C-alpha cells in the first residue's frame, strides 16, 4: 500500500506562447506519490496547472523536466496511445459518429482483441454503468448523465493502470453532479482503479478523494486527506481556497511554555496548544471558519455589530463588523438560539480549540 504506484518526480512544464515570447510555467517542481487503488484529486483555481499535470500523466504533453514512473517503469517517452492510462474528458469527447457500443469497444478493437471477447467486456461494463440495452443508441441522443457514463465505460473497459478524470462533472446540473460523483466513487472502489481526478470544485474533491493535492500557480500548496486540508491548512492560500468564506485574524506569539503558546489577538491573549511549531515573536494568522465563532448578547471575547443577516432555515449567516474587520459567522439551528438583527450589538466567542494557526 505504501509503495508508490504512480510516481511523479520534479515534474515541470513550460510553454512558449505563440506570439508573446514569454515563457509560461504551467507546472513547476511537482513531486507526488500515488498508491495503488488510491483516489487522488488535483484541486485548484483555474490556471493553476492541474489539467496540465493530468495531461502530462496521460502523455498529451511532454514534460520540460522531470520524470513520471508508472508501476516501476519510467513512462516519459511512452506516447499517449501506448500509455496504460485512460482519460475521462471534460467534454466527454465521445465519437459522435458511433453508437454507444462502438465507442466503448474502440480501445479494445485497437488492441485487436477477439471479437467475442470485446463483446463480452463491453456488455459487462455497460451493465456496470447501467447502460445495458442501449448499446445501439447513437451517442448524440443521450442525456448528459448517460454521456458521462459512456465516457467512463469507454475508459474503464480498457482496465488502465491509472484512470484520469479531467473535470468530468462540470457540464452536468447540480443534482446530477452529486449523483454522478457517488457513482464514480463506487465504481472506482469496486474495481480498485488508481485514479487521478482534476476539479476546481472543493466539495467534489472532499467527497470523492482519499487524498487531495491543492495546487496554486503550478506548484503544490498542500497534500493531505480532506480532513487535513480543511482542518489543518498549511498556507493561507489553502485556508482561503478550501471552505466557504474563511475569516483571517492576525496575531502575534507573546508567550510560550511546554504545553501552549499565548497569541495576542487585538486586546486579548488566546492560548493554543501548539508549542512546537511557533516561537515567541512569530507573527501568525488565525484561520477562523465561520462555524468556529459563536455569537452572544452577553459579554464575551470581542465586541461587534451585526451588519447583514442571511436566514437559510437550518442556519443563519451573519456578517459582523468588529475591530475594523468583517467576519462571516455561521450559526446552526437558529430556532433554538434565536436570531440577531441588523444593527444589534453582539459579542463573538472564538472556538479556540479548533482554530488553526499558520505563520504569516
Amino acid at each position, binding site marked *: 500500500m505504501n509503495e508508490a504506484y504512480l510516481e511523479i518526480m520534479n515534474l515541470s512544464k513550460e510553454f512558449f506562447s505563440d506570439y508573446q515570447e514569454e515563457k509560461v510555467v504551467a507546472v513547476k517542481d511537482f513531486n507526488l506519490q500515488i498508491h495503488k487503488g488510491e483516489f487522488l484529486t488535483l484541486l485548484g483555481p483555474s490556471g493553476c496547472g492541474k489539467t496540465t499535470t493530468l495531461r502530462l500523466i*496521460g502523455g*498529451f504533453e511532454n514534460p520540460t523536466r522531470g520524470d513520471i514512473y508508472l508501476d516501476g517503469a519510467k513512462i516519459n517517452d511512452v*506516447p499517449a496511445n501506448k500509455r496504460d492510462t485512460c482519460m475521462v474528458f471534460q467534454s466527454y469527447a465521445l465519437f459522435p459518429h458511433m453508437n454507444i457500443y462502438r465507442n466503448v469497444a474502440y480501445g479494445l478493437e485497437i488492441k485487436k482483441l477477439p471479437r467475442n471477447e470485446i463483446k463480452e467486456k463491453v456488455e459487462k461494463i455497460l451493465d456496470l454503468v447501467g447502460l445495458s440495452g442501449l448499446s445501439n443508441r447513437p451517442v448524440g441522443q443521450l442525456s448528459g448523465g448517460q454521456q458521462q457514463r459512456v465516457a467512463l465505460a469507454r475508459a474503464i473497459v480498457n482496465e488502465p493502470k491509472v484512470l484520469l478524470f479531467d473535470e468530468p462533472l462540470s457540464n452536468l446540473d447540480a443534482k446530477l453532479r452529486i449523483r454522478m460523483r457517488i457513482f464514480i466513487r463506487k465504481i472506482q472502489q469496486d474495481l480498485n482503479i488508481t485514479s487521478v481526478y482534476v476539479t476546481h470544485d472543493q466539495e467534489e474533491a472532499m467527497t470523492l478523494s482519499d487524498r487531495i493535492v491543492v495546487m496554486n500557480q503550478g506548484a503544490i500548496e498542500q497534500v493531505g486527506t480532506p480532513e487535513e486540508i480543511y482542518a489543518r491548512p498549511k498556507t493561507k492560500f489553502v485556508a482561503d481556497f478550501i471552505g466557504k468564506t474563511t475569516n483571517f485574524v492576525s496575531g502575534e506569539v507573546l508567550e510560550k511554555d511546554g504545553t501552549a503558546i499565548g497569541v495576542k489577538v487585538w486586546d486579548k491573549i488566546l492560548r493554543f496548544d501548539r508549542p512546537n511549531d511557533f516561537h515567541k515573536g512569530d507573527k501568525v494568522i488565525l484561520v477562523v471558519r465561520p462555524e468556529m465563532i459563536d455569537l452572544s448578547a452577553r459579554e464575551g471575547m470581542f465586541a461587534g455589530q451585526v451588519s447583514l443577516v442571511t436566514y437559510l432555515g437550518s442556519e443563519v449567516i451573519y456578517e459582523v463588523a468588529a475591530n475594523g474587520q468583517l467576519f462571516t459567522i455561521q450559526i446552526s439551528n437558529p430556532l433554538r438560539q434565536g436570531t440577531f438583527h441588523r444593527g444589534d450589538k453582539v459579542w463573538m466567542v472564538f472556538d479556540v480549540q479548533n482554530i488553526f494557526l499558520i505563520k504569516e
Partner: protein
Amino acid sequence: MIRTKRFVAALRRTPSDVKRLFQEPLLLMGIVLVNVFLFLFVVLPLFKIFQLSFEDNGRFSLQVFVDLMSKRYNVQPLIHSLTLGVAVSILGTLIGFIFAYAITRVNIPWKRFFTVTATFPIIAPPFMMSLSAILLFGKQGFVSKMILREIIQFKIYGFWGLLVVETLTYFSTAYLTLYGVLQAIDPALEDAALDLGASKGKIFRSITLPLATPGIASAILLIFSQSLADFGNPMILAGNYTILATQAYLTIVGMYNMKGGAALAILLLIPSLIAFCVQKYWVSRKSYVTVTGKPSAARIKVDRSLTKYSIFGLCLLLASVIFLFYGMILFGSVVKLWGANHSLTLANYAHVFTIGWEYIKDTLILSSIATPISGVLAMIIAFLVVRKNFPGKRLMELVSLLTFAVPGTVVGIGYILAFNQRPLLLTGTAAIIVLLFIFRDIAVGVQTGIAELQQIDPSIEEASTDLGADSSITFRRITLPLITPAFYSGLAFTFVKCMTAISAVIFVVSGKWNLITIAILGSVENSDLSQAAAFSVVIIIFILLALWLIQFLVNRLGGGRKLKFEKAESLQSI
C-alpha cells in the same frame, strides 16, 4: 532582439516535437510526403518562372523587365488588367452586396430563386458569359441583329464587354462572402440599435454596413484576383484590349518567347499575391464576425413596401440579365447556324457526343482521377496543420493556400517550365494534367477542412489516442468521418473546377489528352458558336450530375448532412 528570442524559443520547443514524430513513422512519412509534393508541384513551378525571368547567363538580372517596360504593347496589358480588375471588383461586389442584403435583411419574395441565380455562375464554366455576350450582342447577335436590326453597334470586344461578363461571372463570390458575413452579424446588435431609436436607414449606415466592411473589402480583393486570373473571357472577348493572362499565353504559344511570357506571368503574379496577402493577413484580421454556422435568433426583416419592392425589382432585373445570358446559350445550342439559320436542331449535340466525345471522355476521366486524390490530400494537410505539431507547419499551410493566390496562367507556365525535362518529364502525359488539377485548387479543400476541424473538440481525437490509436488510425477512423461534410464539399468544388478549368491546363494539354473547355475555345475561334454553346450545356449537365451524385453519397454515408458547397466557396474569404 524579439526575433532571436523567438528563434531560441522555437529551437527549445522543437526537440520534443521531433522526438514524438519519430515514434510515429507513418505520421512522419505523411508529413515528408506532403512536403515533397507541395514542393514539387507548387513551389518548383513558381521557382522556375522566377529563375527564367531573373536569370541572365547564370546571373541575377532585371533585363527582361527593362525590355518589357520599354515597349508600350507590353506595359499596356498590365494597365489594362489592373483597370479591369478594379472595375470588375467594385461593380461585382456592389451586385453581390445587393443580393446578399436582399436575401438576409429584406422580406422579399422568391428568395430561393434569387439564391440559386446568384450562385449558379460558380458552377458554370467562366467563359460561358463571353460566349453568351457574342450570341446576344455580337455582329450576328440576337439583340444587335434580330431585335435592333443593326441600328446600334455594340462594342462588346474590349473593356466594356469584359467588364459586363466578368462582373456577371464573379459577383457570385462577393454574394457568398457577404451572405456569410451579413448572416453572421448578431441580430441582437441591429435590434439594440432599433431599440435605441435608430431608423432602418440609420441601422444600415451605422451598424450593418460598418460591420460588413471587412467582408466588403474581402470580396473586392477576391474578385480583383479572379478578374486578374481570368483567361477564358479575355481569350474570347478582349479584342485589342490586351491583358496579362492572355498576353502571357500568346507570347509563349504564339511567339515562342518563353522568357517574355514568364516575365509577363510575374507581372501578373505580383498584384495577385499582394491582393491575397492583404486579404489574408490584414482584412480578415479586422473582421468583427466569426462565421460559426450557429443558428441565430430570428432577424427582423425590412418590410416597408417602397424599400422592399425597389430592392426586389433590382434583384429581379439582375436575375433576368443572368437568365438572359445563360438562356441564350441554351437557345444557341439548338440552333442550326447562329446568325444565318435559326431553325431548331439537335445536330450540335450529336456532334458533341460523336466528334467531341474524346474531349468529354478525357475531361471526365482526368477530373475523376484528380478529384478524390485532391480531396483526401486536402484533408490530410488540414489535419496536420490543425492538430499536429512539427517544424515547418506554418510553411506547409502557407504553401498549400498559395495555390489559390497564383493565377492559372502563371501555374501553367510554371508547369511547362518545370516538367519538360528529365527526371520530371511530364509534358504531353495525362499525369501532368491530373497533377495540375490536384494542386490547382487544393487551397479551398484545405481551407474548408481547417475551418471544419477547428470546430471539432480536439479532445475527441485525444480520446482516440488515449485509447491506443496512433495518428493514422485516428485520422482514418475519427477525423475523416467527422469532417465528411468538408471533405465532400471539397470534392464537389474540385470537380467543378477541373471540369471548367482552362487558364492553367491550356499550357499542358496535348493531342493525346485534351479537354472540353479547350474544345469550346476552339469552336468559338472558328466562329462555330452553336457548337460551343452545346459543349457548354453538356459541361453544365455533367457538373450537375456529379454534384447530385456527391450529394447522394453524402446522404447515404454522411447521415443526411447538407452538402456545404456554397460554404466551400465563401470560405475562401475567411
